């Protein structure tokens, strides 16, 4: 009987064959933390182990509130710098032009690698599945424990196989696919499971598109989400690998799945997730014309160069009707957008471009909403109050839909402006 990706990855890490349902204790490879490395460091000190197990397995990337907007954030950042110094942690991305959103940095810096067990003290750590990693989000205590012991327990998850065929129609993208899937199976539809994306349409997708899919695995409750480590992945990591311990692993043809789904991209339309849950799917026709006050193009879900190109293609030579905030996922993406002239397109259209980071996605700064306001966003969560005010409304959509909506000042169908 064949094995799923999760069984292979966790079995390799455990050192013996495992099946779904078994519990294994494994050594994680890279352990990512962002601004919350500060409270984790405090918890770590309570354990009574003086040094972290392997300093070069820890990666700290400041992104949630940078540069620090409040004194509390500033203190957190300071504590992280002190801990980095004290523990000799080599992989630290501070508030510099080498930084960006943590999940983007993990991928573009060569930490996200096929077959690695990766953990992060952030729920969207599942993003690295786009590179074939087994990656999952954990809490702070658990991260402190991993730093101290180099161990973490996992129940080998059952797997959900999603096979994707067909081609996107004009104006439709990976974000529309994942919002549709979550709308179908709901916010707990993949609870505790490993989600595997299969099929020719996944193979045809860029890694950026695969990152959008895997990033939102957590929004259906998944432990991890993963795409095949194909030639595109191998080409992308070539020369930047932060370790040589990776191995391209993939599910066997005859692996056993808890559940299987299939999607044809040709049947998808542009869509949104309506307030206040990610599974509140609506095709664009149902919400077209809804007045908006802000558009946000950013976050770990959709702020890569590919996303910025799609949005710029719609905004070029036009002017936005509402305040539009553009936050490239990293400074590398920012520079590329600058060199390609995309930042000019955004500025000419009237957008505000801020420094790479999480920005307003979880309501820290750079675009908080006022009561009664509505934002259309490329991010991954529209929970009540997520962008700072509980009387505001967030619609999630693709970069193309967000750009089209920004032009009209209301939710708009990107197919009409392409």
């Amino acid at each position: 009987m064949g094995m799923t990706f999760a069984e292979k990855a966790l079995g390799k890490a455990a050192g013996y064959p495992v099946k779904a349902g078994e519990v294994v204790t494994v050594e994680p490879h890279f352990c990512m933390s962002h601004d919350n490395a500060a409270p984790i460091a405090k918890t770590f000190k309570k354990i009574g182990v003086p040094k972290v197990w392997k300093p070069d397995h820890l990666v700290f990337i400041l992104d949630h509130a940078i540069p620090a907007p409040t004194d509390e954030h500033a203190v957190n950042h300071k504590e992280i710098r002190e801990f980095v110094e004290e523990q000799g942690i080599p992989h630290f991305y501070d508030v510099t032009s080498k930084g960006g959103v943590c999940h983007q940095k993990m991928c573009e810096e060569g930490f996200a690698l096929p077959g690695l067990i990766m953990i992060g003290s952030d729920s969207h750590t599942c993003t690295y599945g786009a590179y074939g990693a087994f990656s999952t989000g954990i809490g702070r205590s658990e991260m402190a424990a991993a730093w101290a012991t180099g161990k973490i327990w996992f129940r080998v998850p059952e797997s959900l196989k999603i096979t994707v065929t067909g081609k996107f129609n004009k104006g439709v993208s990976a974000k529309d696919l994942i919002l549709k899937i979550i709308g179908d199976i709901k916010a707990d539809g993949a609870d505790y499971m490993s989600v595997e994306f299969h099929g020719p349409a996944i193979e045809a997708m860029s890694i950026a598109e695969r990152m959008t899919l895997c990033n939102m695995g957590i929004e259906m409750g998944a432990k991890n989400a993963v795409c095949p480590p194909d030639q595109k992945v191998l080409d992308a990591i070539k020369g930047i690998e932060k370790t040589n311990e990776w191995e391209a692993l993939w599910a066997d043809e005859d692996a056993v799945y808890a559940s299987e789904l299939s999607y044809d991209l040709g049947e998808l339309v542009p869509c949104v997730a309506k307030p206040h849950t990610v599974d509140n799917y609506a095709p664009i026709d149902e919400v077209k014309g809804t007045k908006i006050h802000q558009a946000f193009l950013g976050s770990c879900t959709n702020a890569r160069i590919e996303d910025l190109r799609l949005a710029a293609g719609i905004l070029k030579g036009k002017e936005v009707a509402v305040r539009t905030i553009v936050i490239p996922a990293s400074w590398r993406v920012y520079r590329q957008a600058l060199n390609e002239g995309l930042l000019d397109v955004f500025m000419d259209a009237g957008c505000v471009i801020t420094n790479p980071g999480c920005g307003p996605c979880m309501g820290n700064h750079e675009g908080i909403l006022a009561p009664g306001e509505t934002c259309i966003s490329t991010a991954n969560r529209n929970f009540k109050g997520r962008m700072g005010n509980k009387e505001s409304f967030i619609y999630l959509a693709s970069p193309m839909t967000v750009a089209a909506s920004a032009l009209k000042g209301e939710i708009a169908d990107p197919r009409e402006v392409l």
Partner: protein
Amino acid sequence: MEQSVLRGKAWVFTDDVDTDLIYHNKYLAETDPKKMAQFSFEYYPGKENFAKEAKPGDFVVAGRNFGAGSSREHAVYCLKELGIPVVLAENFSRIYYRNAINNGYPVLFVAGLSQAIKDGKIKDGDELEVNIGTGEIKDVTNGNAFHGDAVTDLEKDIMASGGLIEYLKATATKK
């Protein structure tokens, strides 16, 4: 682990209660668990005063996917610090569940609870009797009974120590 029967009032929530509703991201910079209690459910419509009105010993009762979303442990700390002895839900988001176990905070998986809430078989203010050890739950107000599955053997050691960090400290001392 606590084997005796606990008695308290039910605070009833829907399905998919996300971490922003339990503990809003506005207060994420807070690192002292004791100060987190006051923000519990501040963003949950109709339960904004939960932190002020809930008494130690009261129960949080919810449907499916409690704790969906963020990995923030604040969403566990705030309820624990408030004196809520256990969260009863149909099921929990994976990270919330792990965070609860790793902090020695009991949660019970109660089959059928989501529908029971929708059908009004368990309501705000009902008096409940809960045995965390056996998983027996009784709504004293209307006589309805439920059963919750307690933690598995795997997590019992961690729970018994009071959480993952305490567990590691104890293990380190033994060496």
